[in-house]
């Protein structure tokens, strides 16, 4: 079955729209995106793992978590929730931080809006709209802690480079 994965970048608007359908009712999908124990199970690209330090899923609250490499290297992110409509959508400001959630002055940000909609009783669509402050932000988010090539092996990258 198709899951209708969408990944559209609008470079002029500095936005990326990501969308996907899941075979689960909306309440389960919502829980999987907002309960830290569950998010940790899917958010990190293997072999990295995600570890939560703080999760306060309220408006003004933050999710402070680290992507941890097999060698124990940690990359911290601080997600601040700016809007929550239970079971429907939430908005956040995403930034890289240190382990105490401190962010550098003028550090790049991305604004994320995540929307959930029922297709039927057992199928849910999630739309993620990311707005970046500048080019450097997309570059950072794309490379994040994954310079070691765990997301995309260097061979794949070479292929991509060779393709044009």
């Amino acid at each position, binding site marked *: 079955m198709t899951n209708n994965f969408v*990944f559209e970048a609008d470079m002029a608007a*500095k936005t990326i729209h990501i969308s996907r359908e*899941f075979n*689960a009712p909306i309440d389960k999908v919502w*829980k999987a995106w907002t309960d830290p124990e569950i998010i940790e199970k899917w958010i990190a*690209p293997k072999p990295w793992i995600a570890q939560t330090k703080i999760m306060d899923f309220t408006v003004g609250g933050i999710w402070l978590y680290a992507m941890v490499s097999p060698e124990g290297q940690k990359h911290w992110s601080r997600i601040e929730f700016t809007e929550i409509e239970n079971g429907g959508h939430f908005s956040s400001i995403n930034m890289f931080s240190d382990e105490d959630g401190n962010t550098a002055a003028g550090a790049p940000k991305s604004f994320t809006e995540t929307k959930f909609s029922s297709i039927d009783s057992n199928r849910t669509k999630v739309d993620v709209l990311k707005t970046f402050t500048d080019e450097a932000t*997309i570059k950072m988010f*794309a490379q994040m802690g994954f310079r070691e090539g765990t997301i*995309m092996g260097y061979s794949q990258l070479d292929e991509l480079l060779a393709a044009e």
Partner: protein
Amino acid sequence: MRRDIFQAIADPTRRAIITLLALQAMTPHALAEHFDSTRQAISKHIKVLTECEVVTQTQTGRENYYHLNLQRMKEIDIWLERFRKLWEDRFDQLDNVLKDL
């Protein structure tokens, strides 16, 4: 001044210039003929594109040619491809998590 690719493509005229130069290198005169704007206006846009490293110039005889720097454009595709792959993999993992939830 450091400029980024977003500044290059933020303006519709600059996007049109990029599209034209993607087809072939052009002289300032040939390029300007495609637009109603003055040559000065076009050369301002070219200046921004040059600072963003999207456009380069070469001299052939007496003529100056503008070229699109494909390498620079390709870089963007590479970041985006990485980012796309990250989300694709995440969602595949999420499918498995949802099965057991």
